[in-house]
């Protein structure tokens, strides 16, 4: 159980943030999922534990959203979400902002496929949608991400004194 937390925790947390827009709530939901699993002391045999964990987290968050009957938009400014390569915090912030701009359903598919490592079939299972729909949402998301990140790059180039 602990190994799963270490192995998939980061992607699960990111998926939780993609769903709720709130790192604190995602963290709480993630802990709830694992504490419930520990309380049960055993997990029903599942073919794919990754898909199972992402689905459990999504259900937990959706139940909590129903209780609260409101949601908050993803806050890209507050908290870092990624370990940036080369410690480039501007790039990390650009990615956060680009993700925050995506529609919720596209953001969820992107996180599950890129950082969760799920196939489109698994992603579709977690989100309760068709695999083709998942793939289509992903393609739309990539296009928007590319636009956002390229625009940010151009802004950075123009902002440099020598550029």
């Amino acid at each position, binding site marked *: 159980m*602990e190994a799963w*937390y*270490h192995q998939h*925790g*980061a*992607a*699960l*947390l*990111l998926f939780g943030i993609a769903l709720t827009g709130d790192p604190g709530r995602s*963290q709480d939901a*993630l*802990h709830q999922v*694992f*504490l419930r699993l*520990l309380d049960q002391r055993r997990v029903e045999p599942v073919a794919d534990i990754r898909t199972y964990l992402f689905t459990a987290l999504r259900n937990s968050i959706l139940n909590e959203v129903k209780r609260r009957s409101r949601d908050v938009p993803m806050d890209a400014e507050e908290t*870092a*979400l*990624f*370990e*940036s*390569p080369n410690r480039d915090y501007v*790039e*990390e912030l650009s*990615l956060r902002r680009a993700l925050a701009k995506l529609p919720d359903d596209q953001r969820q598919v992107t996180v599950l496929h*890129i*950082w969760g490592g799920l196939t489109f079939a698994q992603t579709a299972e977690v989100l309760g949608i068709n695999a083709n729909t998942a793939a289509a949402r992903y*393609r739309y998301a*990539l296009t928007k*991400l*590319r636009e956002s*990140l*390229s625009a940010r*790059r151009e802004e950075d180039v123009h902002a440099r004194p020598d550029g």
Partner: protein
Amino acid sequence: MHDPMDDDHQLELYLKRFRPLPPEPLLLPLPLPQREGPWSVFALRAGAVAWAVATTVLVLLLIPQFRHVPATPVGAEPITAGKANAMLVHAASWKEMIDDAGFAFRPPVKRMEPGRQSALEFLSQEELSK
């Protein structure tokens, strides 16, 4: 240089270079003590009682003072505070009272059959004539 934004595959590789931050450590609740079944509780208690009994018996066997309790001589009168006080009143001195107490509370001498004499009595007779 190839721009990672140019095609989907390169963009995917670029995005995967960012690794999501790990969550906070999972705070596990302390494990609850497992409930013992009735048989295991019974076995534990029986074991403890058996151990205590065995230890007691061993101590009684090994320590001599527990093995032999000196019996009070039959017929001997116990020295009470009252009797000692009365003797002190009649005695000439403290030492004399102490000397007399040894005889006064001595168990009565067992009478021998006629014609026989105890070795102790014989040896204790003083030959005053000498």
